């Protein structure tokens, strides 16, 4: 059989792509330009679509192809385009200094990755280590750390726009966890999640736009008049 049918090759490709996704995520934590962040997010989504295809191909899960295509269309192409159009309209390129300085954030992201791996370990099921069904298992650790770093990014960013982006990365982590654990949720659930994601981004976009209008800056730490 051809090299591309060999499960070993599939496994290697998956781990490689997952590693790249993690690196992109940590890169996003490290830098401050809005536009580059959006592009990193697009790349990440593209890689995710790739992972989904690989798993679908090796585990013969037809509905995963649809999910992969949706990720590609939505998260890799449509959303980045919309977000870039919004950033150009508000024309703020530079993100002011984040809450926690960059070197410390990177350190924390490292810590969170270790937490991800610790949690993933407890899921390790020795019984079915070798069978092809467990192809995507080591990607679970990446998924959890993706989720935790996304969450951390939300906390440490001042710009409302960046918080939306962090939320999207968080969703990516979830998508990766879903496909690696159970080869995707039932189809209707996948569709529901994508639809919700789309509506959420539109709603948050409008909100960011309104905040920009009223506070003429996207700095979220300004929003602190409601106390007690």
């Amino acid at each position: 059989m051809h090299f591309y049918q060999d499960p070993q090759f599939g496994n290697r490709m998956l781990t490689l792509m997952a590693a790249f996704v993690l690196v992109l995520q940590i890169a996003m934590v490290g830098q401050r330009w809005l536009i580059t962040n959006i592009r990193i997010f697009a790349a990440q989504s593209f890689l995710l679509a790739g992972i989904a295809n690989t798993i679908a191909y090796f585990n013969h899960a037809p509905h995963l192809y649809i999910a992969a295509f949706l990720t590609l269309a939505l998260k890799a192409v449509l959303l980045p385009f919309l977000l870039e159009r919004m950033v150009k309209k508000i024309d703020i390129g530079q993100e002011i200094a984040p809450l926690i300085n960059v070197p410390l954030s990177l350190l924390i992201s490292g810590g969170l990755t270790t937490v991800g791996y610790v949690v993933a370990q407890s899921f390790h099921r020795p019984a079915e280590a070798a069978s092809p069904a467990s192809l995507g298992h080591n990607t679970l650790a990446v998924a959890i750390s993706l989720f935790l770093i996304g969450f951390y990014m939300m906390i440490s960013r001042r710009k409302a726009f960046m918080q939306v982006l962090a939320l999207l990365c968080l969703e990516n982590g979830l998508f990766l966890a879903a496909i690696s654990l159970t080869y995707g949720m039932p189809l209707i659930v996948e569709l529901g999640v994508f639809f919700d994601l789309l509506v959420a981004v539109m709603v948050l976009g409008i909100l960011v736009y309104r905040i920009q209008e009223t506070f003429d800056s996207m700095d979220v730490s300004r929003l602190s008049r409601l106390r007690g």
Partner: protein
Amino acid sequence: MSSAPIDYAFFGGLLAYGVGALGGLLGSGKPRLARALCCSLALLGGLLEIGACGLSLLGSVGAHWEISAGVPFLVYGFRLDALSTYFNLILSLLATAVSIYSLGYLRSLGETKTVGVLGFFYNLLLLSLTAVFTASNAFFFLIAWEVMALASYCLISYEHRHEATRRAGILYFVMSHAGTCCLWVGFLLLTSRAGATDFPSFAVLAGRLTGPWQVVIFLLFFAGFGVKSGIIPLHIWLPEAHPVAPSNISALMSGIVIKTGIYGMARVFFEFLGVPPLWAGMLVLIVGVVSALLGVLYALMEHDLKRLLAYHSIENIGIILIGFGASLMFISLNQPRLAAIALIAGLYHTMNHAIFKCLLFLGAGSVVNAAKTRNMEEMGGLIRRMPQTALGFLVGAIAISGLPPLNGFVSEWLTYQALLAGFGTTEPLTRILFPLAGALLALTAALAATCFVKAFGITFLALPRSESTEQAEESGFSMLIGMGVLALACIALGLGAALFLPVFDGITGSLLNIHISSDLITAGGLALTSGSIRGGTVSPAGIAALFVILSVFPALLWLIWARKGKRRVGPTWDCGLPGLTAENEYTAFAFSKPLRMIFAALYQPQREIEAEYEISPYYPKAIRFESEIEPTFEKRLYEPIKEFILAIATRMRTIQAGSIHAYLAYIFVTLIVLLLWGVRS
């Protein structure tokens, strides 16, 4: 429900209160109709309840009824056993007297529109009180308890225009609610041990309660019921709340609402606890003595008439607790006969205090209403303007000071006998405690007499000290009847004490299963004896009779010599001043001056004097004098706690400081901690 007459009487009474409450609500527009409806229905309810209690005493003790309301664990269970009948009897007696009094009193409150609301809460209070005394399961008891607290709160803050009334109302409701929480935990502990919420199963459980359970349950119930009855450390709401309430309500509250705490203690200590440890009885005795002594000492310093009476409620609750404490100690020293005497002393004083305190508050209510002020310093000379009220107040004063031949003396005499009998016990420690308690009880009674000489003398005797007291006129006819009924009850309970004792056989039978009221009566029901063969005896009826017989001698003297002598009415000796005026009279503040000097350590009195003068300080134009004693409990105990809690609350409010990053960080940290915890276990 068997259709015995007792059911009609009991539920008829409840129905009357209920309809009275509705009548109050519907008639809130028209004060006259509302007033008549509420008071007459309350009166009817009171009379029916007296009938029910009478029937229960005569024959069918232990009648009980169950009404369920959908939810399984909420059963409205009523039970008229001996203890409930006794307290319900006190309640219905007071309800009757106060209802008659209210007919006149509410008319004098003026044509305010909200008389209907007052009527509603008044009837609701009576309804809930009956339910508290006759509830037969913990859940219904707690509901009735809170409805009573709610109704009392609304009645206390009836005149909520004044800031002091609102503050007193809140303080009352908060402390009463804290007490209820103690009861709640206590009852839940009992339910978890007994498996069911009804009182008979608690009673069955009593035998099997082991050490630590017994201690926790005892302390919880003692604190919970203690708040409601106003024992010393938990009493600060009582002198605030009772004076601000309308007088007929404060009469009812001082008379019977604080007795619900006593009822609770009697029910729990003697029925649910089994044999308590010795220190429990000692604790109740000591708290009783302290409450009695401090209650009367603080009452002496008051010159607001109703606050003075409120403090006296604390004193008398102390005396009741001395009886209960002694009884508990005798139970743990397994001397059932002495325990029965002490219990009878406590319960008898409960009835007596309810009656004479209600009489005093009704009298004070009429006086305050007529003189338009609560401050005794502005009263005086009311005995000429309100002779009948003065007579009623005097009867109440003599009774509360425990002077023969009235009922106060009888119950204090019984308490002394119990304490004296206590001295015979073998326990070395208790041998000291009983006589010491007796001596302090004597001090309390004497100070109470001093306080009521001051209260009666300054309020009623000599010259009126302000014009509003000048134009005071006698209270309405129904108010006088209300007071008259209670005064007669005081005299009847005093003289006919021996006839009243068999009432307690049922109670001591059910709680301590011993009947000794027959041993307490000798000389054909004329005299009371302390139970032992050569024990002391007293006969209030004999004393009264002696009064009449011996008065023959002074009458004889009068006939022989004094008839011829001239009787002239002249001005009092005024040391050459141009005629005596009200300013020369002794004031309440001056009257209590010696005691303030003697007990200065307790009172920490402070005073400031400012004299205005032009040329030299020796010829002051005006002198302003102000002095007050230190509210030790509020300052030392309650203020620090309040400050501490509010400080913590303000500091903890910073967790909602507005920054979204902080909010997200809280969730993030919780997530990480839980994940690691989840993985580890």
